[in-house]
Each structure stands twice: as structure tokens, then as C-alpha cells.
């Protein structure tokens, strides 16, 4: 177990490191001169040269990469180019906290609901409830979150006027005050993932219910209730752990669209705007953060999965 965790940890670190190289190289390859961007198009050639020297832009690429990386490790992410003088690290932290609230909120909503719907539908495949869930979840995964978001805005903000359409949250005003602003973005973010996870749990339930060992347990004469709670659920829900982790990618990717729909100040929109404004330090830091978060979640899931299912420990490497 320790050996596996150690190996997986090193793997995660390497993934992040590789990602950091790729992010840095692509960001550096962006068209446009950073010095020109800071000083504007009327800058003299001399002042441009001085600034390039000060920023270390004349140094070789690998040198600049290690410079950047050591900054990242020390928690110094540089200053923003588009918002003059703003330090990237505190900005990123604030945005990250907002994104986390959105993601955690969505998870708290999705996990219980998808388990409930998936299990009930999967217990009676072919029933009207199962069909209903099947069509509804296909619908959920078919609607991009900006469409779900717009429908929610049209209903709850424009028509009913219950909830705000824009979510420029500011947590310093107290969490409870901000709660109404969070509801619609969380719902919009949840749609696709709710659909996917429910479908997976349902499919997994059906598969386990049809398996040999469920038959065997039933034939032993244990009541259906006991078969389901003791044998089926445990085996059917285990794969859900991985599915949830995979879908966290959706939360991070889908968050861009939701954050843009609701003008929500999260990491993803920070990165999107940085890309649009060629704000290289913010872009690099934001992307690295998202990748690191993603890799960490995957690492955590693998470890939890191993704890839950000891069979994995020895067979994982072959997959």
C-alpha cells in the first residue's frame, strides 16, 4: 500500500512538472512582445530594451523556466500585466477559493442525488422510472451548461425575480449573504455531471444485479433487501468513485462556461481573460493551478479506491 501510494505520488508530481513545462513553453510562444505590451505601442526602442533586460526576457528559455518554477515554489507568481501592479498569488488564491466553493457546492448537490436516482433506477431496469431517468439524464448531458444557466436565469431571475442573474460574489460580505448568488451557478454546473454519474451508477447497478454472485446470494435465500444492501451496493458503488473523479474534470472545464455565464469570479474565468489579454503570468499561474488541482484529485481518488478495493493494488499497473 505504501509503496503503491509512493509510486502514485511520484507519478502525480511528474505529471504536474511535465504540465508546467508545456504551459510555460506555449505561453512563451504566444505572439506579442511582453515589454511592448507593458509600455504600449509608443515606447522607445531604448526603454523597451531596458525593460526586457529587467524582466530577464533576454535570458535563454530554460533559464527563464527555472526562474519561473523557483518563483512558483516560493509562492511568488509575479505581477499581472493587464491589471498593472496586481500581485498574481493573492489574486489567484481569492479566485481559487471562489471556484472551490462552486465545485464543492456542486458536489454536495450531485453526489447524493445521483446515487439516489441511479440506485433506484438500476434496481428495476426497464420500469417507467428507469426509462424516465434514462431520458432525463441523456437530456442533462446534452445541454451545455451555458444553456442550462440561461434557462435558469430566464426562469428564476427574469421571470420570477427570485435570484440574481449575475454572481459577482464577494465573500468578505459574509457567506450567507452571498448564498443566493451561488445557487444558480451551482445548479448550472451540476447538470452535465449529474447526468453522467447517475447513468454510470445505474449501469453499474444493473450489471451487478445480473452477476453470478448476486444470483448466488439470492439463491442462498437471503432476502432481497439484504442482498442489495450487503452485496450489490458495495460492488456497484465502488466504480462510482472513479467516475466522480473523472467528472471533476468536467467541473473544472465546465466551470469556464458557467463562470462566464454568471460573471462569476473564479479561476477559470481568470484564465480565460488572461488568455484573451495575453496576461502571461496570470495565465501560467492559473493553468498550473487547475492542472495541479486536477492531478491532486486524481491522486486522492486512486488512493481512496485502493483503500476500498484491495484487489486493485497489484493489478493496477497492467491497465
Amino acid at each position, binding site marked *: 500500500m505504501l509503496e503503491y501510494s509512493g509510486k502514485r505520488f511520484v507519478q502525480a508530481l511528474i505529471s504536474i512538472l511535465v504540465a508546467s513545462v508545456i504551459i510555460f513553453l506555449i505561453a512563451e510562444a504566444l505572439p506579442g512582445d511582453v515589454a511592448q505590451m507593458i509600455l504600449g505601442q509608443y515606447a522607445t526602442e531604448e526603454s523597451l530594451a531596458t525593460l526586457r533586460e529587467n524582466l530577464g526576457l533576454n535570458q535563454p528559455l530554460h533559464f527563464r523556466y527555472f526562474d519561473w518554477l523557483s518563483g512558483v515554489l516560493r509562492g511568488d507568481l509575479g505581477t499581472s500585466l493587464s491589471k498593472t501592479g496586481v500581485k498574481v498569488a493573492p489574486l489567484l488564491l481569492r479566485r481559487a477559493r471562489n471556484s472551490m466553493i462552486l465545485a464543492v457546492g456542486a458536489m454536495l448537490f450531485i453526489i447524493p442525488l445521483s446515487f439516489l436516482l441511479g440506485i433506484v433506477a438500476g434496481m428495476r431496469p426497464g420500469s417507467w422510472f428507469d426509462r424516465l431517468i*434514462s431520458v432525463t439524464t*441523456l437530456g442533462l448531458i446534452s445541454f451545455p451548461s*451555458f444553456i442550462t444557466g440561461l434557462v435558469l436565469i430566464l426562469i428564476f431571475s427574469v421571470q420570477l425575480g427570485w435570484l440574481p442573474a449575475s454572481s459577482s460574489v464577494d465573500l468578505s460580505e459574509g457567506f450567507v449573504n452571498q448564498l443566493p448568488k451561488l445557487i444558480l451557478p451551482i445548479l448550472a454546473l451540476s447538470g452535465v455531471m449529474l447526468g453522467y454519474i447517475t447513468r454510470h451508477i445505474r449501469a453499474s447497478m444493473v450489471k451487478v444485479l445480473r452477476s453470478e454472485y448476486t444470483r448466488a446470494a439470492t439463491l442462498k435465500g437471503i432476502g432481497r433487501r439484504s442482498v442489495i444492501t450487503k452485496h450489490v451496493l458495495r460492488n456497484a458503488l465502488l466504480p462510482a468513485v472513479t467516475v466522480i473523479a473523472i467528472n471533476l474534470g468536467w467541473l473544472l472545464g465546465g466551470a*469556464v462556461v458557467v463562470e462566464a455565464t454568471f460573471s462569476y469570479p473564479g479561476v477559470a474565468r481568470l484564465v480565460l481573460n488572461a488568455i484573451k489579454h495575453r496576461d502571461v503570468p496570470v495565465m501560467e499561474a492559473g493553468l498550473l493551478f487547475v492542472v495541479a488541482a486536477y492531478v491532486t484529485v486524481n491522486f486522492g481518488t486512486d488512493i481512496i479506491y485502493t483503500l476500498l478495493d484491495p484487489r486493485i493494488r497489484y493489478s493496477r499497473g497492467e491497465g
Partner: protein
Amino acid sequence: MIDRSLNLAPSFSDRVKNGFSYLLRLRRKPLGFIGLLIILFWIVISIFAPYITPYGPTDFSTDKFFGPSLRHPFGTDRWGRDVFSRVIIGSRTAFSLALSATLLGLVGGTALGLSAAYFGGWVEEVLGRTMDILMSFPALLIAMFVLGVLGPGTINVIVVIGIAHIPRIGRVARSASLQVKNQEFVEAARVRGESNLYIMVAEILPNILDTLGVEAAIRFAYSIFLSASLGFLGLGVQPPTPDWGLMISKSRSYLQVAPWLAIFPALAIASMVLGANFLAEGLEEVTGGEQ
């Protein structure tokens, strides 16, 4: 010269018959059939788009923010452009983007997945690991980053979405090929002394087509989904080309006064993605995939 009389693989006409029988069997799968109808509907619409639209998709007029009426079934936008015409012509943008991206993903993914399964060993190892890494990042995020560097535009969107499909299609193609690889007719071809390329293309590929067909429908749905999202973020097709995602993004400031600007393109996107997903579900059932 290789003697192909010892060919144990199902013949070409058998396969065509098989393909048709799948489509026929869709009749008895309500979801799949509805999906097929929706996709056929959009195919007809996009082919005949210029004959259906009453106005040019980029024609300005003085009828600004008109609600849906007989003259403008879906209303008009802030420039007085006819939303109905824009949605109809927009189906061409959506189709061409999604079809090209799906095709790119299918070709790339199948080539990689099939070779990984066929050659095994280190080829499989290297390809598998590379795809794992590619797949471990959210597709939309990669797309956003790459489009930020390359700049937005139709071709770039197709390439980005197509590449995002490759690892997923590759995985499906690989596992399907693994099941075919050890069958008798492949062995027979090897005994005949066929080249590796011939065996992969002429013997294995035709036998994983049904699996790839289901996957293509899923990826097509996802292509529409992704390209609409990228359009919405302003990283996709650039104005004035009528693009559904872009139209919705521009409608946001006028939700109070002109909700039709958002509703109709949203319905178009939703119906096309839903249709493709329904079709995929139906195809999966009739080709005997997972229930």
C-alpha cells in the same frame, strides 16, 4: 501474389447488409429512432438552408429587437438581423465543424488505437501512456488554451476538438480491435502472408466499424457541445458567421428585453446534441453494446 481464396472474413456485401439492418432495427428503439429523425431533420435543414431562409443571415435592417412574428418567426437582434435565418444558416456552421472534428478524431483515434492493439508490446505501452496523459486534462481547458495561442477561427476549432477526441476514440478502437485481433480470419490473413497494414485496414477495421459507429455518434454530439461552448466563450467561429454559441453569448446583455435571441439558438444546440445522443444510445442497443 497472395491467394485470397482463403479469406475467412465477412464479405463486403455482408457488412453493408449489416449496416442497413442496424438502421432498420432502430425503428423498434423509440429513443434511437427519435434521435435518427432529429439528425435527419437537421441534415435536410442544413442542405437546403439557403432556400428556407427568408433573409440573409448577415443582412441588417431597421427592425431592431422585434419579437417573434410572422415576418420574423424567431424575432430580430440588435442589428435587425433575422434570428430565424441565422439559426438555420448556423446549422451549416455547426454541422461542418462537428463532422470535420469527429472525422479527424475518428481517423486519428482509430489509427492509434488499432496499431496499439495490433502491435502490442512497447507500441501499445507508449501510445497508451500518451493517451492517458492527454485524457487527464479537461478537454475544454486544453481547447481554450490552444485556441488562445493559435487564435480563434473555424479551422483551429476543428483541429482542437478533433485532437481532443483522439485519446477517447483511441481507447475504444483499441479494446474493440483486441477482441477481433485473435479471430480465425485474421490468423488466416497472417498465414497467407498479408502485410500488417493490409490486415489492419482490410481485416480488423471492417469488424470494429459498428463499435466505431456508436462512438462516432457520441463524439459528434460532444463536438457540437464543445464547439457551442467555445463559440459562447468567444474562442470559436468569429462574427459575422452565424454560430449558435456565439449568438447566445451576444444575447446575454438583452435577456430581459429580447429572450428570443437566446432561446432559439439554445433550442437548436440542445436538439442537435440530444438527437445525436439518442441516436448513439439506440445504435448501442442494436449493435449489442452495453445496455
